[in-house]
């Protein structure tokens, strides 16, 4: 089986464009996901039954269905929903990129919410009591005391979830988006260079994820304060 390196070289810029889109989705997904996820985690701990009920239902729903299904849902229905909400009577045009970013933030938030919730449970109860004793408002307590500790405690898990997010971005393939895998597929189909393209993309993903997971391992080592590995 001869491997055609020339095809790979000419395709490289297009692949890099795809990789850039993949990274964009990952960054937006992480930032939005952690913010929204933290909100959900806090909501779940709230005294307000409606709020905690909604947050719990949302997290459980998103974690029970496949990402591909969520991608299809958002892709076909979000424009309708926005149009309905803003009463324009017609759906508002939402581009593919924005749709994809929205999907990943909504989906990953549920997973980040569970991780942050575990983070909250890992904080000693004394912290909560001290906040109350000091008369801090709930908002201040969470933003300045509790959330930073929670996130620091589960940082390695958050990072691992981010690596999973990076891998999940490949699923935008189903809506013909041009991320790294989408770019490789388009070239593979156009030029018949299946083997070269998919092997290359596999290697690129591997390099990124392996480096990232090694980093997380090191981080875990440094955060462990001598606890058993």
């Amino acid at each position: 089986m001869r491997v055609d390196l020339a095809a790979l070289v000419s395709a490289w810029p297009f692949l890099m464009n795809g990789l850039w889109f993949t990274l964009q989705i990952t960054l937006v997904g992480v930032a939005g996901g952690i913010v929204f996820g933290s909100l959900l985690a806090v909501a779940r701990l709230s005294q307000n039954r409606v709020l905690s009920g909604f947050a719990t239902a949302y997290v459980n729903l998103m974690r029970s269905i496949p990402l591909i299904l969520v991608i299809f849902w958002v892709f076909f229905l979000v424009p309708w929903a926005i149009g309905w909400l803003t009463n324009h009577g017609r759906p508002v045009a939402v581009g593919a990129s924005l749709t994809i970013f929205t999907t990943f933030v909504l989906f990953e938030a549920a997973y980040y919410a569970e991780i942050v919730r575990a983070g909250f449970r890992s904080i000693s109860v004394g912290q909560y009591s001290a906040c109350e004793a000091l008369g801090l408002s709930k908002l201040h307590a969470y933003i300045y005391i509790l959330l930073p500790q929670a996130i620091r405690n589960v940082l390695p898990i958050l990072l691992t979830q981010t690596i999973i997010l990076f891998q999940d971005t490949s699923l935008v393939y189903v809506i013909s988006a041009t991320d790294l895998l989408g770019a490789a597929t388009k070239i593979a189909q156009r030029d018949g260079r299946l083997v070269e393209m998919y092997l290359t993309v596999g290697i690129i993903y591997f390099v990124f994820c392996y480096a990232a997971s090694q980093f997380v391992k090191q981080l875990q080592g440094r955060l462990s304060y001598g606890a058993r590995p």
Partner: protein
Amino acid sequence: MSLLFETTPDGAGRYLDWIIDGLAWTLCLALGAWIIALVAGTLVGAIRTLPGGILPRIGRVYVEIFRNIPLLVQMFFWYFVLPELLPARIGMAIKQMDPPWGSFAPALICLGLFTAARIAEQVRAGLQALPKGQAQAANALGFDKRAMYRLILLPQAFRIILPTLTNEFMTIFKNTSVALTIGLVELTATAREINENTFRTFEAFGVVTIIYLLIALIAWQVMHRIEQAARLPGAASGKA
């Protein structure tokens, strides 16, 4: 949800039949891959805890490769790339496999080995969490390596990691949807096909979403029962 009972365009039945077929493929793929994953994952996880030699390193390589490449890319490899890399006759024979087996077989192997890598890590963590005394006592009593793992270490390790295994079990049902990209008409693909034929997006995807929720619920219940049955009094794992 009257959609389910309307007749399909090829006149061969109702949309409900399509959904049942899709569900059947999802379940077969998930359960088949789960069995492969448990067997392979336990094996790899166990050999990673061996003291020395080449086996732990092979285990490490396996886990790193299968965990650091996205599932979709792995699916493409098994479906598109592998037949091209094999000798021409074997490659052609694979490609001539009738659908849907032509899609099911690679999906089964792919999902099985992918999940196995994740289970391997959990099994490894479980084995390493056991008190060292267990292995030492087994040695003192004259157990050979295989018997030690099979009768002493693994049963305890599994009880410890049951919560994470539950998570993995629920995840494998969701991951079956990735097989739609190589042509397996599982549940999510069925929703998309119904949508293409009727344009009733909300109903088509809504029904399938509810089915996935039910699957998740049942899967969780099953694992929960197993967890409770397997609980060792006084063991560290206790709660979920």
